[in-house]
């Protein structure tokens, strides 16, 4: 078993970071072993990274379906449990149901979208993590996991490509 090391390279701009990622790939670091931390939403394409997989749309759809079903229940099923006639209207008129179903569908969709972010991103998460606060100042940090043997080689390469600093990443409380 090889000992894995985490390196954290900080770049001040997009270009060097993108170059570094390309270089790292040449050095045999797999994309899965890299992660980019940024203070602005830097798209994967800008850094030449593979697209991130996100479950949020699927979760949103799932929530919408659940909300839709809940809406159907409230609109069509709940009035039958205790039938009360009002204003000569049907027990569960369709026009009324449309409003109820719409609201609950939207509620289900938006709630699950929100929860989806939490689920996908493991929020809330207060454990120690690899991080440099400079990221929120606009710096771009690349987090690399590599065998201990490659550490020096990668550090040198990154420095050459304009990394402001390359350090051993230590998990810390944010």
């Amino acid at each position, binding site marked *: 078993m090889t000992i894995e090391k985490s390196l954290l390279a900080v770049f001040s701009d997009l270009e060097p970071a993108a170059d570094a990622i390309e270089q790292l790939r040449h050095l045999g670091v797999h994309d899965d072993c890299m*992660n980019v931390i940024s203070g602005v939403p830097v798209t*994967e394409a800008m850094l030449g990274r593979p697209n991130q997989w996100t479950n949020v*749309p699927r979760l949103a759809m799932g929530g919408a379906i659940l909300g839709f079903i809940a809406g159907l229940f409230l609109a069509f099923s709940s009035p039958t449990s205790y039938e009360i006639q009002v204003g000569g209207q049907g027990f*569960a008129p369709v026009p009324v149901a449309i409003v109820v179903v719409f609201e609950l569908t939207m509620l289900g969709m938006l709630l699950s979208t929100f929860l989806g972010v939490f689920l996908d991103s493991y929020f*809330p998460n207060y454990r120690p993590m690899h991080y440099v606060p400079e990221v929120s100042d606009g710096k771009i940090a690349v987090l690399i996991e590599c065998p201990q043997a490659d550490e020096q080689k990668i550090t040198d390469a990154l420095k050459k490509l304009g990394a402001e600093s390359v350090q051993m990443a230590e998990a810390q409380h944010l």
Partner: protein
Amino acid sequence: MSDKKHHNPEEHFREQHLMLDPMPRGQMNDMVMESMHTTSWKFWVVAAILAVISFIGLGVDWYRLIMEGQGLAGVMRPDYWGIFLVNTVFWIGISHAGTFISAILRVFKAEFRRPFTRAAELMTTFGLVQAGFSIFMHMGRVWLSYWLMPYPNQRQLWPNFHSPLSWDLLAITTYLLSSTMYLFLPLIPDMAMARDRSTGWRKTFYKVLALGFRGTEGEWAHLRTAMNIFAFAIIPVMFSVHTIVSWDFAMATRPGWSSTIFGPYFVIGALHSGMGAVVMVLAVVRGTMKHMKYFIRPEHFEGIARLMLIISMAWAYFFFNDYIVQWYGGDKWTKTLLHWHEAGPMGWMWFAMLIFNIAIPWSILWNKKWRSTPWLLFIVGLLINVGMWFERYIIVPISVTINRMPFTWRLYQPGIEVPMGIGTVAFFILLYMLASRLVPLIPVWEVQEGQMAHSLTKFGRETVMTVSELE
């Protein structure tokens, strides 16, 4: 058109446009943090006064209202509905501004939105809180309001979904939850930013709210996707909320209320008051908080003011649409109602509504210089809000005077609603003031994102601003 003083077009652009006046991110962070930390004694005096007013209005008076009965308010037969519902509609209207700015402008990629989306979204949430208060104030037996929630119970008695009020409950709940979530999602990166630059209790506060956000590619991707979904999905929710509020009236068998145009008319009215309120808030924020003159510039006021002008025109269009159909119909009760609006003892309010909602915005906002002047816009926004409050007052207590039983017609005279309504205003401002010291009012990452996307390009002899599509 450019100002003669600036021979260098770039310098001119920088001064005009936040997006072309980039600063290092760290510096912007510090400015935003500093704006939260800089609090003068005046702030606390105002906050204390507002706290007292809120306590009287929402504490003391509400307690009395609950313990003694709705009779403390000015309601009676036939004015079963009074200022509480006026305020409910009014606050829901205010709350529409945030969503409109952050969702619709986001969907349509209106770049000038960037620095003030959060300021507007906060209004949405806090406005809805006041709307909730107002509707609960209105209830005769508020301690039983949980009966309106759909929950399983041993009698298997569910709420009556035939009632527009039930729809309202669903819609407002949905809207309150989703607008709060929509406020929170883009706040997470800023909370992380604040976390990284705080100590003490603030550190804990931001740490908890930042949820452990670092800014990894995954986190950004999930967040961006979610925000996109929200931006699209919350728009119909927003429209549905005020449409359903309008249905509370339009579904009724009352002269003047039974109108199919009420839905869009209310939505546009909500935007009208909401935009007015946003401009007021921005003017105050810009004028009182440190560094805000950098982030919030005349160009932003100008952009909002243009929207205000369009919305005012749309409101006038819908108003006239509603009016002429009612008038043309010739139903005697509706005729009486219109006459009552215009020539009754509260006729001054009807005319004031038209002046504040139409005449004043139109006569000021057409001028680019005027509409870029924050204090002037503050006044226009204030008047629009007064006008829109009048509009709701005319729709609710003044209109319900006239029904099909002339023997019962009576003029509404407000009672405890007034201090309680003032209480909601005070509480809204208080919440906003406190939030302005706790929540980064400027979404720094969004500003930075925008600044990255903007650049100056030369077409022939002219230098123009171009935006690259980064997302």
